[in-house]
């Protein structure tokens, strides 16, 4: 392995930072969901990198990543279902239009 562990972790950190920007700055709920997917992806990349370099004989890390992917899929499906419901009632899914709960 020529490429060190830190390189993978740096890539994961950059992806994480970009995803944080997306989640905070985008107005559309679809884009926020895409940012969350990217967050999960960055975390998965970190886990797999640590598995490969630190504990390559223990495959629990891959199982964990599979669970992350599963949870991401379920979250995407439910999020899109909620978004369709909201769109039907409000004609918009822009997240800063929903301010009813603001005190």
């Amino acid at each position, binding site marked *: 392995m020529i490429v060190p562990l830190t390189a993978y972790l740096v890539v994961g950190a*950059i992806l994480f*930072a970009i995803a944080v920007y997306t989640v905070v700055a985008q107005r559309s709920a679809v884009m926020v969901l895409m940012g969350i997917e990217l967050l999960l992806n960055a975390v*998965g990349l970190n886990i797999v*990198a640590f598995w490969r370099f630190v504990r390559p004989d223990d495959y629990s890390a891959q199982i964990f990543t599979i669970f992350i992917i599963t*949870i991401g899929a*379920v979250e995407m499906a439910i999020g899109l279902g909620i978004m*369709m419901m909201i769109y039907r009632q409000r004609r918009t899914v822009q997240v800063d239009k929903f301010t009813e709960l603001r005190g």
Partner: protein
Amino acid sequence: MSVAGIVEIIAFASSAFIAVAGALGMATTMSMFRSAIFLMASFMGVAGLFILLSADLLGLLQILMYIGGMLVMALFMVLFMPDPGGAMMAAMPEMMTPIGRFFSLGLLPENSHAAAAEMSGAHAEHDTHADHGGGHGTHARHQDAEHQRGRERKEGDDAHGGGDHHAHGAQGGSHGMGHMDMSDMSMVTPVRAWAAWLAVATGCVIVGLLVLRPSWPVSSALPDPRSADQVGSLLMDKYMVGFEAAGFLILIGIVGAVLAAHSGQHPDHRDREARVAVNAPPPPIEADFLEPLSQPLRDDDKCSPAPDGGHANHHAGGEGPT
């Protein structure tokens, strides 16, 4: 340095570049559709990194799950959005950041009458479905995009819950009523600058901590080249409860998504009322200059309440008692 090492470095560099550039494009481009495609590229890059880390199963799963499944859902939702192609924002590149301008290159701006007419036509189709008579939708075909924006703005105000203008006024400085039309079309919130600085700070802190940290206890052991076998047996042995729980979670998720997206479960927006299929005779058509039918076209016309329903009455009224 061996050939394998050079190949590995090249593979890592290209995969990491695809992943990071795709994520950056996803975050900054003004077209939502293009942003979904950029996200797909980013997932591809991460899948390449997985394979490079000798986690082949995860790389394949990544492509199958994210690109095959979720991104199709995301594209489906993107097509629901107003202005999915970013045509409105492409007309005003001075509102984009430089990097957003780079990733939005080639977007067709909405400056020609053709684009405006097309968009207005698309909205008028909505109106045609929304109107009860169907005849009122034609006038919407002639309204220009400016009027359309005004209507969207009005609907946005309606979304605040019955003219709750107080909450609207408190929505932050650059979001007031004055230049509402400018900020309302963009894909980003008014806190974009803060978010950008937050992201840069997050990235710098994490990368700095990673670089400054003393080296990790790296093991020199090689993973099993058939790691998928190991993962499968572990999934069926040690993590069986978690595996079953994940399956159950997917089941609940599917049912919940179907229930949430199910129409008729919740009261619809009033504009959408007429678009839901209802079991009622359609309203009679006024003055279509066609000679009336002597027989109903289909057999299921008999199912409607025959002589006093509006539809049947209309057809029978022109012909008289036959």
